[in-house]
């Protein structure tokens, strides 16, 4: 194991006292306490309820607690806040905390996780943050492929990537050029397809940035400089500990290449609702980059496109790129011609668009051996 202490990770922490409510984040969670970063404090011993959560890792869990300690901000990476001491007299609460900590402390297993990496998009114009993630990925993950990190320098580029791919988590800096991070978060939350994407906001902006990003819909806010080890522990849980409700199909990735934006949107909607992770490409340049970055389990290629014939694309992938994953041709061409083209291209088969989306989804499940 790369590091010994897995006891630290980041959660959203909502504190409710008899007179106040504050939303912030916490770390250093143990069976008996958690440290919450906040400017708010009350007298030591004040009773509160803290709701702990993190998308896909921890369902909102209300824990009765009291203020045990107050810490003023110190060096960078030592934010000020309060330590909440849990009232664990409730067996239910105690068991939930123990179960969570057991998951955090579990040894790395690579069975299910080997199927798909945890895909993270970092939206930050700072190269330092990107370099830190590259470093952290190598240092904190035993299996380098467990975390696939993608970058965008600004909101517009991020939006483009979000439109083409699916991410397990998006980390957004508040201070971005042109459009700020809160605005991007609001766009994600108002988009039907992206609205449930887990979002961690980061910033040096302190309280103002925290309030702006959380109001816009971020799940968690973390101050810069980042408490890096804690953040990576959280990512590790996302990558290696899928929640029980997560379907097997979610871990299979399909890349769809079609020149029709309508066909792309429709296909993606159908496959995503079937539980697959989907990336789309509308031209050759995008297809090339998605092939490299997205690491698909299956490729669907339209045949008649302005830039290339899909069967030529498939043949190039097979013959010159050594691609071995299934490739399906998808077209409204006559089935006999489509069958000939698929055979010539060494594709895994073909789907007639006229057969409809249900058949397309069924074939994808069949090829990827995913139960309906």
């Amino acid at each position, binding site marked *: 194991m790369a590091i010994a202490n897995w006891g630290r990770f980041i959660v959203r922490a909502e504190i409710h006292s008899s007179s106040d409510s504050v939303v912030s984040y916490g770390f250093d969670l143990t069976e008996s306490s958690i440290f919450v970063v906040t400017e708010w404090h009350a007298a030591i011993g004040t009773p509160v309820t803290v709701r702990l959560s993190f998308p896909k890792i921890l369902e909102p869990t209300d824990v009765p607690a009291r203020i045990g300690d107050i810490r003023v901000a110190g060096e960078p990476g030592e934010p000020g806040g309060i330590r909440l001491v849990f009232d664990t007299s409730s067996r239910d609460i105690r068991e939930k905390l123990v179960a969570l900590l057991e998951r955090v402390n579990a040894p790395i297993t690579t069975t299910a996780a080997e199927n798909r990496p945890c895909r993270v998009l970092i939206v930050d114009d700072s190269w330092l943050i990107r370099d830190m993630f590259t470093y952290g990925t190598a240092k904190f993950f035993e299996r380098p492929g467990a975390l696939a990190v993608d970058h965008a320098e600004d909101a517009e580029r991020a939006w483009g990537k979000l439109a083409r791919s699916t991410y397990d988590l998006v980390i957004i800096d508040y201070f971005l050029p042109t459009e700020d991070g809160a605005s991007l978060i609001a766009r994600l939350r108002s988009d039907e397809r992206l609205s449930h994407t887990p979002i961690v906001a980061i910033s040096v902006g302190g309280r103002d940035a925290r309030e702006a990003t959380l109001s816009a819909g971020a799940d968690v806010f973390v101050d810069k400089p980042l408490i890096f080890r804690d953040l990576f522990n959280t990512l590790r849980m996302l990558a290696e500990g899928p929640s029980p409700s997560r379907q097997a199909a979610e871990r299979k990735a399909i890349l769809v290449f079609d020149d029709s934006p309508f066909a792309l949107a429709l*296909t993606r909607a159908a496959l995503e609702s079937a539980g697959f992770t989907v990336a789309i490409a509308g031209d050759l340049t995008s297809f090339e980059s998605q092939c490299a970055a997205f690491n698909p389990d299956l490729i669907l290629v339209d045949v008649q496109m302005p830039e290339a014939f899909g069967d030529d694309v498939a043949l190039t992938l097979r013959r010159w790129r050594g691609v071995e994953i299934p490739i399906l041709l998808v077209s409204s061409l006559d089935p006999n011609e489509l069958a000939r083209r698929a055979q010539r291209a060494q594709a895994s088969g073909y789907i007639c668009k006229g057969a*409809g989306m249900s058949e397309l989804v069924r074939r994808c499940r069949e090829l990827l051996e995913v139960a309906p």
Partner: protein
Amino acid sequence: MMDDLLAKFLPQFVAHTRTRVAAAIGSTTQRDRASFAKTVSELHTVAGEAGLLGLTDVFPLVRDCEQKAKRLRDTGAEADVEVLLAALHHLAQVIEGLAASPGRPHDDRVTTAR
């Protein structure tokens, strides 16, 4: 699943297809030979979209238009212009029918233009 997709995507399909078919009728009416190849390509795209959306009555109509457009592209014959225009006008009517009753995409009264 298909019901949800249809409800969400049918209005887009109708809007796009209405525009494309109108453009195809326009260029064919004007005997704009330079546009014939584009018309073929557009109709091919529409056919695929209709097929994916499960519009089983619209799909063969568009395929039929596509075949007629290919023939016109290859021959440029006046007779083929008239044949394609008739098929396109019929397709336009069917698309308007979809727009008017989006809950009934599979209208069994629709007949393929010959």
